[in-house]
């Protein structure tokens, strides 16, 4: 029982849940160490492929963990891994939510909010720039990033329009031999 894969999945990801401060990407190296080196559930290439798929899919980055569970033990593995990584941190977030609600009328919460907001926005901008550096390897890619950013800033329409257009432009440019 101790060596059952589902139990190992549950223990591995539940223990990572409470240290994943800053989101799943922070613990990716540790996930890699456990999944590839320690348990030998998959090799490096498979891990890299799963990572790419999790990045390409919509939804939070934590989906990498779901995918690892699915790869190791099918649907049950997917369910166990997802619950294991989300439940401990989720319960903590819920507890914090209740604390904030209790103190929400105090002056200190207003001050804390005023202090947290600029850091949160700065971090979103930072993650956008990090993503752009990883994704943009030619002029067209940089132009797509810039055009999408301008669309979001200037228009209140659904950003999906910009994403769909960008994807179509990328494929068209490839077909016309304008990019590699």
């Amino acid at each position, binding site marked *: 029982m101790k060596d059952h894969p589902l139990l190992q999945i549950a223990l591995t990801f539940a223990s990572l849940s409470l*240290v994943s*401060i*800053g*989101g*799943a990407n*922070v613990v990716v190296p540790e996930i890699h160490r456990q999944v590839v080196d320690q348990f030998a559930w998959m090799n490096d290439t498979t891990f890299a492929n*799963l990572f790419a798929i999790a*990045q*390409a*899919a919509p*939804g*939070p*980055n*934590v*989906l990498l963990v*779901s*995918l690892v569970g*699915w*790869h190791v033990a099918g649907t049950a593995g997917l369910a166990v891994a997802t619950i294991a*990584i*989300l439940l*401990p*941190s*989720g319960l903590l*977030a*819920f507890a914090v*939510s209740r604390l*904030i*609600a209790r103190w929400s009328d105090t002056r200190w919460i207003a001050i804390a*909010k*005023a*202090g*947290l*907001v*600029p*850091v*949160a*926005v*700065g*971090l*979103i*901008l*930072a*993650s*956008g*720039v*990090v*993503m*752009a550096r*990883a*994704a*943009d390897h030619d002029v067209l890619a940089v132009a797509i*990033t810039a055009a*999408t*950013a301008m*669309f*979001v800033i200037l228009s209140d329409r659904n*950003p999906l329009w910009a994403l769909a257009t960008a*994807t179509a432009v*990328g494929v068209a440019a490839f077909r016309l031999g304008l990019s590699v």
Partner: protein
Amino acid sequence: MGTPSERQVSRTDLFLAFLKIGMLGFGGVAPWARHVIVQERRWLTDKDYAALLGIGQVLPGPNTMNAAIMIGDRFQGAGGAVLAVLGMMAMPLVILVALASLYAAFAAVPEVRVAIAAAASAAAGLVIGTAVKMAVKLKPTPLALVFGALSFVAIGLLRLPLLPTVLALMALSVLGAAWGRRA
């Protein structure tokens, strides 16, 4: 129009909104969550949303997941929190398994590779644009601008370790806000 926290948001509304956020959430959930919750449905102001994201950031777990739990709890208690999480995870999990199943067959098709690369570039622009838009709408004080810029430079350009840097910046930023309101 009352303040956003006085709005009535039913459990169905919550679930459907987060279902949409999860389904749209290419390149990360934060910009889509802002689009749906702040812009489209006006459940929260930009300031409230950014504050929840900020709290979600220093807690373990995905910051958007933590924010979803807090938003669900704010409008519909524990049940709302569970529904927000289920809504946000449902479609991505289905799409993910489909993608993983098809990956072997389609990874070699160059158009697929190019499309994913272009979508990744656009997603980066979406995140950058969302940050700039929030910064404009929040009408920051000079001090807030300084801390926003510091956070961006420290994490985005200098790539300092996330947790200690963010904790230090948040502590200083809150102290600065307290000092600014003194009097």
